């Protein structure tokens, strides 16, 4: 009986702790969002003047911010297909490669995700300067792809390891061409993993800052522009943008969780 009581007490402590943890994670976000609805500029939650929605339409007037947002999308457009293709190729190769060569290749290919992002950005601009390519959107695309491609690789590899290899062999025995096999058996099997990794790559490229700021030169993305504005005197327009970000994230997270529950 005493043991049961101890466990209950432990669970209570654990619940209090996790409640505090979640509050810690949400408190700054909530405060930032509140400041977007306050008419005071620079943004503040404690100096409350008037409830207003005026900062939201102002977002559309920020030409520089919108230009930087377009750059973010330009980068994403290239990073997503490139990372998924590289990740898929590496996953297929690594699943079939065993032994020392496989382990070494694996170590090299996941190394970029264990390196500080700024080092990747620097290495990219140093390398391409030798060929006369200055830091711009191109170098950012290359630097981001270098480490983001490791994530599709891991996701697709995990799926490949659950594949029934007899299926492929059976198809080949029945006279399917290798290309037909890949298109009709392997690719459909990998599709969920490919879509998940594409979504992840999109998110990672879009929100990347540390690699981007070191490799982009004079151009900007949404994140570098937010950082630049946060450093100086600014209006709550950034907070309004934050509200948009958090809202979109909450909607997608809830849909994602509900779908996972539904599948069960």
């Amino acid at each position, binding site marked *: 009986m005493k043991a049961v009581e101890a466990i209950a007490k432990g669970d209570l402590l*654990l619940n209090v702790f996790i409640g505090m943890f979640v509050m810690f994670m949400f408190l700054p976000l909530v405060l930032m969002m509140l400041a977007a609805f306050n008419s005071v500029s620079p943004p503040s*939650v404690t100096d409350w003047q008037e409830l207003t929605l005026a900062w939201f339409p102002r977002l559309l007037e920020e030409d520089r911010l919108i230009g930087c947002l377009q750059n973010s999308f330009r980068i994403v457009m290239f990073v997503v297909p490139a990372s998924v293709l590289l990740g898929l190729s590496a996953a297929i190769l690594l699943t079939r490669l065993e032994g020392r060569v496989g382990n070494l290749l694996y170590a090299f290919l996941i190394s970029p995700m*264990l390196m*500080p992002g700024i*080092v990747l950005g620097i290495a990219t601009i140093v390398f391409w300067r030798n060929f006369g390519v200055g830091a711009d959107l191109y170098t950012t695309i290359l630097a981001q*792809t270098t480490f983001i491609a490791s994530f599709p690789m891991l996701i697709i590899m995990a799926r490949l390891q659950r594949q029934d290899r007899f299926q492929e062999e059976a198809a080949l025995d029945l006279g399917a061409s290798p290309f037909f096999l890949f298109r009709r058996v392997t690719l459909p099997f990998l599709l969920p993993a490919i879509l998940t990794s594409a979504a992840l790559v999109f998110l990672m490229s879009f929100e990347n800052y540390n690699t981007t700021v070191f490799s982009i030169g004079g151009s900007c993305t949404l*994140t570098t522009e937010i*950082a630049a504005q946060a450093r100086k005197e600014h209006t709550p327009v950034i907070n309004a943008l934050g509200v948009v970000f958090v809202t979109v994230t909450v909607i997608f997270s809830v849909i994602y969780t509900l779908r996972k529950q539904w599948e069960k």
Partner: protein
Amino acid sequence: MKSLFEIYGWPLTTLFSACVALWLTVLIVAPQFFMAELSLRFEDRGDRLTKIVNDLDVLYREKGTKEFDLENGPACNTMGMVNPVMTNESSCTPFGEEDRLRVEQQVHEIEDRIQSLLVEEQNLKKIKAQQFPYSIKNYTAMTGLHAWTLAKTVAFSLIVTLIALAACYPVAYAVALRSGPVKTGILFTALFIPYAVNELMRIYAWLTVFDLHGLLNTLLAIIGMASFASDELIVWYRFPGTVLVVLVYTYILFMVFPIYNTMATLDPNQVEAARDLGAKTWRIHWRIIIPHTKPGIAVGCIMTFMLAAGSFSVPHIITRGLQPKWFTQLIYDKFFESSNWNLGSAYSFTLLLICILFIFAVMASFGVKLRQLAR
């Protein structure tokens, strides 16, 4: 390799191999190699050669001025600026014969000096070209202040990692092993939302807490320890603790998810059985849960340390120039302000080496292999 050809055929196999080769060489290995190579080339900005180049610059300019004088007369050498002593037009008269000879003599002297410096420059360049181009001077040149910054950055990152580990283990335990399916779902979503919100936004959100008119000062004002009326406010951005708090906040979730993912694969019956056999709670953790979760803990520590040590965003936004620079900010300055790429590469490579050392230290102390790190 044979099975790869058999199953996917040669066109696809070639495509996959080419992609991987491109990624490995052009994106991963070559850039790191070139950065390391650049870091080993020392650019001495105080050496004789640099001085000669500067001196030559000065001499050429001096010679140009004198020759201009010889053509146009002494008073016109200010090129449009008015000489205060001789203001009228007639001042632009040519030199007298004596002055002209003197100035011509000076020009000759300058030409001689230029000539001798050019010879010396040629010789030095030849010697430099023959010399071994590499040295570790960029690494040893790190001044005391920069070394101290590096040490501080590493120490802060270690503290961040430890705090994150201490806080995340119980959280992961609660979500993975001590909740029903519904509670797990809710908690997972509650943790996933801040994880998925843009990193920059999460850092930016802290300004509402630390600002001069932010939450902290307002709370202090309420209990009478600060005052808005008499401007007795605390400038929180001056304290290094702010960077620590925001680093923990920004990167702590990179500790939660790896630990949670491995812990969730533990069979709860194992814990149940141990408890039935009379094991105490700490013993269950020590003997069953922690050994099972080791790979997750290792990944969490590696990611958190690497992200904290390599973070440019957090110190850039939070310190606002009111604190000594963070190591990543020093690197940024070397590249984009004093534009000494060689030294910047050396600093960047140092950071990379520290992270690699940390990875090996963690893998060795947890007894985890690289293949286990994924998932």
